[in-house]
């Protein structure tokens, strides 16, 4: 048996580290390409040529109108797409590690709804009841509120769905639906109170869109998403160990409770802040980590950072599609991601070794 096994060691020796590095490098290239596509596509005539002129310092030779399109519309929108995509995908990947369950997507299990509820509270009550907070926090008010909403829902979900360090898929999905429904109901009540202008804000934003992007919005969520990405090296090994269970992770020297707290806060920060500026864009948190696990394996050493880069790329591509297929009108980006994402979710449920049929440990 040993002599038979040896020849396979070099081509498939079970060590996927180098593959992880190659995939992450590939994703960086993809993100760069997606950025170019996003900057050069749209109803007006700013294409790659104009982009080249702008990038090489010849901005003065561009028509004033193109310059405005590029600087005031496309650049902030592209930057927002990268940050939002990264935040959504990382929060999904981290949540799946925390719950030890590839179906734990913030959108599906009600975390996004918590963030959305808190954001609606901010929109509706911001000018009146919460006016002092609005004054003090300014631009950060909405992201902070959404972060708190996401945090509450993640925490409650964790308390309900995880018993003795085990999360059952059934409990996770069902309690997620219940929490999401409750948040949506309260949101409905609040919408009742909203005036016409607030209603428009809420509708526009609940469809999910990168439209209306400004550098102010990008800056308001950048600290959250950047903070979560900086946390990655400190949680990756622990999340790997946690896949074997709370006890085994502790045996391998992981401070389990601290790790979980950090992961819950990180999930809420990444998901909540992005919801605050771009609305509910579903399925990014499940498509990206799932596809990456297929090519590089489930180790969080590369999965989390790969998700950040890949999430940004995916959202830019989805946004470019949303902007161009029905031009000059614009599809809600959530529609595009759901068209890709819902089948992936179904595949996870029903595909080979379908999760639906076996409950998680």
């Amino acid at each position, binding site marked *: *048996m*040993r002599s*038979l*096994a*040896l020849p*396979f*060691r070099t081509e*498939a*020796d*079970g*060590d*996927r*580290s180098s593959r992880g590095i190659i995939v992450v490098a590939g994703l960086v290239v993809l993100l760069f390409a997606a950025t170019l596509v996003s900057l050069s596509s749209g109803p007006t005539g700013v294409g790659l040529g104009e982009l080249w002129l702008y990038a090489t310092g010849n901005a003065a030779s561009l028509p004033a109108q193109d310059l405005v399109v590029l600087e005031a519309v496309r650049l902030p929108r592209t930057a927002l797409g990268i940050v939002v995509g990264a935040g959504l995908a990382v929060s999904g990947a981290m949540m799946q590690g925390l719950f*030890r*369950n*590839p179906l734990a997507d913030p959108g599906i299990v009600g975390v996004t709804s918590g963030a959305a509820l808190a954001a609606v509270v901010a929109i509706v009550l911001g000018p009146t009841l919460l006016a002092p907070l609005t004054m003090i926090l300014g631009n950060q008010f909405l992201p902070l509120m959404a972060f708190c909403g996401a945090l509450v829902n993640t925490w409650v979900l964790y308390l309900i769905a995880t018993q003795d360090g085990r999360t059952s898929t059934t409990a996770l999905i069902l309690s997620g639906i219940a929490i999401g429904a409750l948040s949506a109901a309260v949101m409905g009540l609040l919408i009742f109170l909203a005036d016409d202008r607030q209603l428009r804000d809420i509708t526009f934003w609940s469809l999910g869109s990168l439209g209306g992007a400004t550098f102010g919005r990008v800056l308001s969520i950048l600290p959250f998403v950047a903070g979560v990405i900086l946390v990655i090296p400190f949680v990756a*090994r622990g999340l*790997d*160990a946690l*896949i*074997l*269970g709370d*006890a*085994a992770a*502790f*045996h*391998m*020297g*992981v*401070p*389990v409770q601290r790790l979980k707290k950090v992961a819950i806060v990180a999930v809420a920060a990444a998901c909540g802040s992005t919801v605050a500026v771009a609305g509910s864009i579903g399925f990014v948190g499940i498509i990206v980590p799932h596809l990456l*696990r297929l090519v590089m*394996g*489930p*180790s969080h050493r590369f999965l989390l950072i790969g998700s950040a880069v890949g999430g940004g790329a995916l959202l830019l591509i989805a946004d470019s599609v949303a902007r161009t297929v029905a031009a000059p009108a614009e599809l809600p980006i959530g529609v595009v991601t759901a068209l890709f994402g819902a089948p992936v979710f179904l595949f996870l449920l029903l595909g080979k*070794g379908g*999760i639906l049929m076996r409950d*998680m*440990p």
Partner: protein
Amino acid sequence: MISAKDVTVARSGRKLLNAVDIQLLPGRFTIVIGPNGAGKSTLLKVMSGEMLANEGEVTYFGAAAHLHSPEELARRRAVLPQAVQLAFPFTALEIVRMGSVAQGSLQPTEQARKALTRVGLLGFEARPYPSLSGGEQQRVQFARALAQVPEPVVEGMPRALLLDEPTASLDIGHQISVLEVAREFADAGGIVLAILHDLNLAAEFADHLVVLDQGRVVDEGACVETVSDRTIGGVYGISGAVGRLPAAHIPFVLPQSRYR
């Protein structure tokens, strides 16, 4: 030396362990036997530092276990839990490497390969863990524990292996080979604690046998003294079982290691 002094663990009004005193000495293979619900797994949890005792304390070389950080404990002892299932397709090598990383190894991949070789799973590195059989999964977990404490003694300090039913779901050949690896670890100066259900294996491998029943240590010592009709009858409720050949029409297989 790892020792439990007067350890009592109570959960929801029931005493899972009741004033247990036990010492795990370097170079000694300690085996715990006892019926279901005797508190064996609880004992292992307390000894590993995973569970806190209500009374009494567990000490690692004189210092209370809960005063060590999880990282420090991970360098002193490795634990083999009962069956572990995974929702994510890690390869066998990736699972074992987690053990080497926990130990702080500079070459975790190489160390993981060595550990897989020791449990006879060379060539299984790239196999996804969920696709392995129950016994193979068990051996991968054992390899992970070995990778976490590759040397029985480091700079004069013994390392410990705590094994919760290491032979469960293994065939008789692999039961013996797993216990032989543990035996070698103890012979080289390491500390070994194992929970076993098979009394014959326990009697063959234990330097020190601990009989647990209803949360109490009812007997301990060398196997010759502890495995008696009286103890076995009292604890398991089966009489006249020790040292008698079965009736002539029943074939029996008694495992024997190559060290006999």
